[in-house]
């Protein structure tokens, strides 16, 4: 095969991505691309920066847009380039970068790129085989294209929230994070790889239209089977399972310490009944365990209430029972298993003290991707990128700065 090299490199080594995305979904996608070896140029305007920079400002920090743990989480391993795309000069420079890039990715509302004069045809004019990923909430066309939405809205509109709930009050629940965002982000990262495969096979680029709601609905396909075949609305069933019993989440010793337990077979139930000292319940069949689920929950709950959650999990696991702590946003950073896998990594940051950050989920065992660098300061790489890729001179840079086409800080930053 032509162009094959024998040395192990990251799969996206040599790929350049122009990243116009903001908030979570898009930046999450491009963080993955960076982890896989791509050079990601994050484009922000001095007058329209990624709001995540300033959403949770740390108190007493100068330039809060450069010292946000939240921004950092989605944007490490990227370069920051400022360009005001609403100014003609900014737009021209952007198209110059497109000519030297492989991928453009954006998560604006459906109409924004066209309104900026940067629709797919224009981008293709700058580079014929450009791979463009659009990830509007409800897609680039269709009756709902102009709806706006963040992750929780996507979750409601996808059908997923209708399935989540305790089941005794018919109240739907949101997932505790803006779940639509990371889901769309991971799918968008996959779409980039597919675009690269297409380009390699055919020489052609592609415009991907990723409607975030549509990606989300694919995660509950079996509920669509039930609805279309039998007219059934999948009931909310709390923490119980459709195939096993008992299953639930039980309070343990300590403040807000919980353990999830799932019993899949008669043998597993026998082991659990022994462990919790409820021998009179040992021989219940699946059918009986379903019918008496509440009673079993009480028995398990009484036992769990006296247990240390970690010790209880380990004891159940030793008996081969699926059991896991409900790890919270604090305790998860001390989980011995994640620690043993080197999941949390501390990177130096010029404005912040070190903290535990998650490494990549895509653990390529051989190429071994590693976190390399903190999220970029605002405009940190503008000069480097514009001069090296487009030959913009020092005096031109000064002029661009004077016109706020580029900048070293957001204009008028407030909260959010």
């Amino acid at each position, binding site marked *: 095969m032509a162009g*094959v090299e024998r040395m*192990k490199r990251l*799969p996206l080594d040599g790929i350049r991505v122009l990243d116009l995305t903001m908030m979570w979904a898009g930046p999450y996608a491009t963080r*993955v691309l960076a982890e*896989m070896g791509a050079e990601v140029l994050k484009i922000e305007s001095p007058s329209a920066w990624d*709001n995540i920079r300033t959403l949770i400002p740390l108190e007493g920090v100068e330039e809060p847009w450069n010292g946000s*743990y939240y921004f950092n989480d989605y944007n490490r391993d990227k370069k920051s380039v400022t360009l005001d795309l609403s100014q003609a000069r900014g737009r021209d420079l952007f198209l110059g970068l497109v000519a030297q890039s492989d991928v453009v990715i954006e998560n604006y509302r459906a109409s924004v790129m066209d309104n900026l004069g940067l629709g797919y045809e224009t981008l293709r004019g700058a580079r014929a085989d450009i791979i463009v990923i659009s990830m509007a909430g409800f897609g680039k*066309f*269709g009756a709902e294209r102009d*709806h706006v*939405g963040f992750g*929780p*809205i*996507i979750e*409601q509109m996808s059908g*997923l929230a209708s399935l989540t709930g305790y089941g005794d009050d018919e109240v739907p*629940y949101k*997932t*505790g*994070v803006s*779940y639509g965002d990371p889901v769309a982000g991971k799918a968008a*990262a996959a779409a980039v*790889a597919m*675009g690269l*495969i297409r380009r*390699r096979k055919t020489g052609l680029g*592609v415009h991907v239209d*990723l*409607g975030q709601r549509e990606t989300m*609905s694919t*995660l509950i*396909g*079996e509920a*669509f*089977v039930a*609805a279309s075949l039998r*007219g059934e609305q999948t009931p909310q069933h709390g923490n119980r399972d459709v*195939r096993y019993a008992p299953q*639930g*989440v039980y309070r343990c010793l300590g403040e*807000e310490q*919980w353990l*999830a337990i*799932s019993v899949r077979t008669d043998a597993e139930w026998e082991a659990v009944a022994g462990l919790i000292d409820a021998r009179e319940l040992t021989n219940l069949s699946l059918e009986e365990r379903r019918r008496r689920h509440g009673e079993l929950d009480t028995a398990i709950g009484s036992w769990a209430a006296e247990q240390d959650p970690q010790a209880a999990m380990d004891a159940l696991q030793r008996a081969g029972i699926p059991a*896991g702590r409900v*790890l*919270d946003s*604090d*305790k*998860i*950073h001390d989980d011995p*298993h994640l620690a043993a896998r080197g*999941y949390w990594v501390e990177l130096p940051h010029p404005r912040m*003290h070190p903290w535990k950050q*998650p490494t990549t989920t*895509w*653990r*390529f*065992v051989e*190429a071994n991707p590693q976190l390399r660098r903190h999220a970029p300061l605002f405009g940190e790489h503008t000069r480097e990128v514009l001069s090296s890729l487009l030959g913009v001179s020092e005096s031109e840079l000064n002029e661009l700065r004077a016109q706020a086409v580029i900048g070293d800080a957001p204009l008028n930053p407030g909260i959010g």
Partner: protein
Amino acid sequence: MDESLLEGVRVLEVGGGFAAAFAARWLAGFGADVVRVDPPDESLTADEQIYLLPGKRRVATEPAQLRTLALAADIVIEDQKPGTLAGWGMGPLDLRAEKPALVVVSVTPFGQSGPYATYEADNIVAFAMGGLMSLTGHPSREPLVTGGSQAYCLGALNAFGAAVTALYGSMVQGEGDWIDISLQEAAAGMLELYGPGSAYNGLGAHLRAGNHVRAAWAIYPCADGFAGVCALERQIPALFAAIGDPELQDERFRDPLQRALNDDELQAKLYAWFGVHTKDEILAMSPKFKVPFGAVLTPADLLENPSLAERGYFDEVMLPDGQVAVVPGRPFLGFPWTPPSALHVAGADTASVEVDWLGWNV
């Protein structure tokens, strides 16, 4: 006509749990030749099988013969307990040594290494251990698992993305890789601001807030169900314009710091407003005012949704008894997508795969 993107790419699905089956389903939809090794004990429900298995050939193969099939594949997706493949004489690194272009994706609850590597888990346990559950549910009740099988789905999303990325790397470099996907890690890296916030500030855990993160980021009962709003600071003026209550122009609601102190009062106003509007009325205001409003829709609602119909979103699956199920289709537009063919019977394709993949003469 554009040929399918993954035309000619052979995928072997070993294990057949939800996550591996879902990742392989997308590969099939984008044109790969997917062969599923049916597990001895099927763990998928009937409805999950209808969603996840069409478009795949299904074989019944003894572990001893799996190695030959794996070496005939371009991508192996497996969800066996760590060490199982090696026990069958087909450890991922051994397969890779024999066929350097091969991509192997392992998707397991806790990954291939570490003290919990061989721990048992199903969806709810992986969801709990990944941190998402601690953030989900009502503060006065127990933590709640999200509907469907989301821990598995996250595994599938990551397995699919890693598989196509590694396939691209293999096309360019001639070298595939072995990718170790952990369901726990897939979730642990998406705890929004709460994960990094707890890690950075050391102020302890952020716990579940139910449907009300704050008044303008919440789900409310509405006239005919439930609806929601997620307004950032820059969208607050538009939200207040949509609601139209003149009192919202007071400084105590307009100023972000004062608003935070008056969140209960704002929430009461929103309860009242949502309560007298229908989902359709609320959704119509989203594009009009550019406010992120939503409504809690059901799968049945979405099957009738004109926008999804216009976008050709749904696929049909023909069942053996002639019934047709309607299911979500491609995750995104841009590449040819093959709607699922009929659902094959378990083990039905063993002979045809032996001919196509192994060159055996029947």
